[in-house]
């Protein structure tokens, strides 16, 4: 038994060594959960990969595998990339967390970057984007522009990431419009265009004239366009083809600056394990152009808020804030800590309905 183990370890190290010697280019691997043609989450990661190639030209070689199932398949794909001599591997779905940690333990000299997870190691960093910062701006525009005072929200799954977005949008919509009401529909999918279209239509029929979405397809945009006086925001990618109406702005996942910086760090030998949670400031969350459908003063306020958030002057979760059950959460002037935000599983006071369990 020990002999086989020895062989395996030796072979793994050997494989690693040959990989490391044989190349002068830095090899970067990407593991995608969806197809690159999904127009949303995976699409944006792949755009960032292309930007990386653009930036470094001949100095990097990138490889990717798309539609990799979470679980043993992802573990195999990561191992294969490491064996083939990758220096840095980005694993771009929450479900890759444990596989990434497992593979990283076998390849101490390969750096791993896991998106949206919370487990780290000496050679595993995590990174995620503060999308809730963008949600604050959306909430502001939505609250200012709604006439029916009903804002529809299409959620994917009831997880902290999505709940955080709902809370952030709600706080800022309520600030400019105390009568605003949120209607939330959980689609139980990240990507199912037909279902997302249905959800959007239902919200519109129930009186919503703003649709916010935390699912990846453009289906809700098309539904809003057909309905007429409804505004939407692009999600994950810019969805500019629906501007100026219904899409009045967007939250864009811009991974390129981070991918370029981390690859540079590997090239320079300065890479260390970190936990990055970047927002508008460092450019990980992009705010798509605010279209002319938005009144000038609202646009100006939104841009001012964007600058304040980017500079760190303003935090979207600033007290006084209470939880839905009326209990105190943040005192006057207090801002939320990252730990609470990361595990957020409660609504802010004023939101109706329960988070499904």
């Amino acid at each position: 038994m020990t002999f086989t183990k020895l062989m395996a370890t030796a072979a793994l190290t050997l494989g690693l060594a040959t990989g490391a010697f044989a190349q002068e280019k830095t090899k970067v691997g990407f593991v995608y959960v969806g197809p690159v043609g999904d127009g949303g989450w995976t699409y944006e990661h792949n755009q960032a990969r292309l930007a990386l190639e653009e930036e470094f030209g001949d100095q990097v070689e990138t490889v990717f595998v798309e539609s990799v199932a979470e679980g043993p398949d992802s573990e195999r794909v990561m191992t294969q990339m490491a064996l083939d001599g990758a220096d840095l591997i980005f694993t771009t779905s929450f479900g890759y967390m444990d596989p990434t940690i497992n593979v990283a333990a076998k390849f101490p000299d390969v750096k791993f970057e896991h998106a949206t997870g919370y487990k780290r190691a000496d050679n595993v960093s995590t990174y995620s984007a503060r999308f809730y910062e963008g949600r604050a701006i959306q909430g502001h525009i939505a609250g200012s522009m709604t006439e029916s005072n009903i804002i529809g929200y299409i959620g994917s799954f009831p997880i902290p990431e999505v709940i955080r977005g709902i809370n952030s949008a709600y706080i800022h919509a309520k600030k400019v419009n105390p009568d605003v009401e949120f209607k939330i529909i959980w689609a139980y999918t990240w990507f199912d265009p037909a279902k997302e279209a249905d959800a959007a239509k239902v919200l519109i029929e129930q009186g919503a004239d703003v649709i916010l979405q935390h699912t990846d397809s453009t289906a809700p945009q098309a539904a809003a366009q057909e309905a007429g006086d409804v505004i939407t925001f692009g999600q994950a990618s810019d969805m500019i083809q629906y501007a100026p109406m219904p899409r009045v702005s967007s939250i864009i996942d811009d991974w390129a600056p981070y991918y370029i910086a981390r690859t540079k760090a590997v090239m320079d030998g300065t890479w260390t394990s970190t936990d990055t949670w970047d927002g508008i400031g460092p450019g990980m969350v992009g705010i798509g152009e605010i279209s002319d459908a938005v009144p000038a003063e609202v646009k100006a306020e939104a841009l001012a808020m964007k600058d304040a958030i980017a500079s760190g002057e303003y935090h979207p979760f600033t007290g006084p804030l209470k939880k839905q059950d009326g209990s105190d959460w943040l005192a006057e002037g207090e801002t939320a800590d990252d730990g609470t935000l990361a595990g957020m599983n409660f609504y802010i006071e004023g939101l109706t309905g329960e988070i499904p369990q």
Partner: protein
Amino acid sequence: MIRLDKRPQPSRAMALATPLLAVLATMVFGGLLFAVLGEDPVQSILTIFWQPLFGEFAFYYRPQLLVKGAPLVLIAMGLALGFRAGIWNIGAEGQYIMGAIFGAAAALAFYPLEAWWIFPLMVICGGLGGLLWAMIPGLLKVKFGTNEILVSLMLVYVAEQFLSSMSLGLLKNPEGFGFPGSRNLQQYASAHNAEIITGSGMHWGVVAAMIAVIFAYVLLTRHRLGFAIRVTGEAPRAAKFGGVNPARLILFCLGTSGLLAGLAGMFEVAGPAGQITLDFNVGYGFTAIIVAFLGRLHPVGILLAGGLMALTYIGGDIAQSQLGLPAAAIQVFQGMLLFFLLALDVLTNYRLRFGAAEVA
């Protein structure tokens, strides 16, 4: 004019030759496809078929073939017993999910207790989960004559929804920061279906698959029940006269296939996958149907077919990464392989006759 004449006996030579022919044809047409997509066809085919077996890192991929192939073989073996008797369980995906949920739930109920009996208990619960789920179409068929193809298929969707409910609710990891998914059983020693020999890919699911193949082989060739299965499939009327109890046979076949699918799910969740998540099932239950037919419903054939299918998955991922082939091209390639295998099988049971059709 070409016509088909049924052979009095299936041709042994053809049964062996057609799979090889099919693989060859797939290489040719797949190569053409890759060439159209702008890749070197020879390189692509070599990457898919050669690299995992004999390439530089074969020491890693060969064990992975076991990991990927074992659930396929385990499920397909059970299905094939039923298919031979004309009993169509196509809901193995659902039974696989239920086996995993039952198995994982059994372990998580006792977390963090470490005890030797936890893993055996999981095996029992996992098998039971699949068995019970398959008994629904079985009992309905026996009792009401309901079509088992459709009931078992419907139950896949029910199981998928149940899985989603479990990973967001009851089985959600309380320390997982609210993310969907259960605790990772790989980090729970008593429940972990670890490799028996490190680096070999051999986990208990692989052992179970091997046992299933041997068991099925003996059953089909040596046992009375196996005889009943074959007769029922080939000549249902003769079987009835021969004293075969159809109800018992239906329950046996559906039950066995459910049991094996449930076990496959349980071994997967306790080992390679580790946790119950929203997307835990990756289609093994459906792919296994394909594997069963590729293996011509024969135990040894299924073993080989499971290996071949696993090879195209592993090789396909390598080709994506090394050559930049899109995942869709690999899917089309697998589809082709399947079509050729299915289409050429006609030569085993029929003879091609060229020339003018005789006037009957």
